[in-house]
């Protein structure tokens, strides 16, 4: 196998299909693309989830295009070049020649699943292999009903991302995979999961999606890792055993675009890079977050504009690190501006599917960035946190 030289730092990658081929049903393309990602997810420590929110940033954009399509690598009609993809350092996107006869589980035409799985190998950092039987060989080998990765492919992807972590079951999930990252080496041996505290009282102090690709919930002196089925094996663990001098009973936590997670309590805050506390913390909130009050209820990075929002009581502040002052004079503003979001929140999270979620007591609300209001869906929000997030 051959590695191009770049790879993704995060382990939970988002993707969106922004342009579909004419000859196949959208739902069929969605399924084949999801299964093409699943091939890699089954053998390596990496996970993928589809994001449908138009306009939100994703790691891997997928398009079916005809001829010249803006990247200088024109497609050539049926046959010849079938598709191409960009390595992580160049963005990771994958383009497919719209003029191919894309087929599913057929000996006719060109099998979409196999070509997509190959292209996503490039999106993850793999170059072409000279092992003829490998998926990453450059030549299309026709439809193989009992397709499986060659050991050459498995060795290649594990050289980049490590083996799959067993705790996250190998399934095609309806909800996005929360993450398949690595926790710091000092993880204690797994003990049976005890989510009873969360199920009995799902009110939480803070929630954050961290640099290792996982989402963590903080409650009292405990913290929990979430998977797509709810609470991960071996949790809760004690905050002090994993997060050094970080205190219990936190107020808030959020992860900024630099993959750094900030925790808040009272008038102090801590910063973690790659799951390790940076030196010189805790600091006073005024030293780094001027204009933000102490004892906040929650904080999150809003996917609508990438700014940091702090909520407390019935008010909120917008913090923009690129501006001076970072909190403009019109703040605080009433939380009622966020239609449907209640006051006195416990926690908030920009989840890896691009949505923003608000948590209070045993309920949660999902925010629709386009309408700038809580989503009106069936079943309606607020929904039961214990059932939908903790798997109770």
């Amino acid at each position, binding site marked *: 196998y*051959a590695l*191009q*030289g770049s790879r993704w730092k995060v382990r939970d990658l988002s993707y969106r299909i922004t342009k579909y081929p004419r000859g196949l049903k959208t739902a069929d393309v969605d399924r084949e693309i999801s299964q093409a990602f699943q091939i890699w997810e089954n053998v390596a420590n990496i996970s993928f989830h589809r994001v449908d929110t138009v306009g939100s940033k994703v790691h891997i954009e997928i398009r079916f295009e005809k001829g010249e399509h803006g*990247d*200088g*690598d024109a*497609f*050539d009609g*049926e*046959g*010849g*070049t*079938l*598709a*191409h*993809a*960009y*390595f992580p*350092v*160049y*963005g990771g*996107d994958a383009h497919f020649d719209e003029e*191919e*006869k894309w087929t599913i589980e057929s000996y006719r*035409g*060109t099998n979409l699943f196999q*070509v997509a799985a*190959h*292209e996503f190998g*490039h999106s993850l950092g793999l*170059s*072409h292999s*000279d092992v*003829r039987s490998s998926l990453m060989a*450059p*030549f*299309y080998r*026709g439809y193989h009903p009992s397709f499986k990765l060659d050991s050459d492919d498995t060795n290649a992807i594990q050289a980049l991302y490590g083996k799959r972590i067993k705790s996250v079951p190998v399934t095609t999930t309806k909800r996005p995979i929360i993450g398949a990252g690595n926790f710091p080496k000092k993880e204690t041996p797994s003990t049976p999961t005890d989510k009873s505290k969360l199920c009995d009282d799902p009110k939480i102090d803070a929630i954050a999606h961290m640099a290792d690709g996982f989402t963590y919930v903080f409650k009292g002196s405990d913290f929990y890792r979430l998977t797509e089925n709810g609470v991960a094996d071996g949790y809760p663990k004690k905050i002090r055993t994993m997060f050094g001098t970080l205190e219990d009973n936190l107020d808030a936590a959020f992860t900024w675009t630099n993959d750094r997670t900030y925790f808040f309590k009272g008038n102090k805050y801590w910063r973690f890079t790659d799951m390790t506390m940076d030196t010189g913390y805790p600091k006073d909130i005024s030293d780094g977050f001027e204009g933000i009050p102490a004892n906040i209820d929650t904080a999150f990075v809003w996917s609508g504009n990438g700014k940091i929002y702090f909520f407390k009581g019935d008010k909120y502040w917008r913090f923009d690190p690129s501006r001076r002052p970072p909190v403009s004079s019109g703040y605080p503003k009433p939380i009622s501006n966020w239609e449907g979001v209640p006051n006195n929140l416990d926690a908030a999270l920009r989840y890896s599917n691009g949505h923003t979620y608000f948590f209070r007591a045993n309920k949660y609300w999902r925010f629709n960035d386009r309408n700038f209001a809580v989503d009106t869906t069936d079943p309606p929000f607020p929904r039961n946190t214990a059932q939908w997030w903790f798997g109770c």
Partner: protein
Amino acid sequence: APVVAPVSDTSAMMYLSQFGWLDPSARKPGSAALLDIRNAVKDFQSFAGLNQTGELDDETLQLMNMPRCGVRDKIGHDARRKKR
């Protein structure tokens, strides 16, 4: 299987440079250029598991006919795939 377009010698050269086996920017006089092409064909044949004749024989042309991925086989001078 998808239709295959016949590959002539000229397009074989384009194929070799498109997929990174020949450096189109190298400006060399006749004989040196010919040697480069010969070596490029051999490198491609080695990568593809063919006899390394250095000639555009039927087996090599047939493989060049195969539908394939558009990403270069040799990444080296991959200046064209600019940062998005």
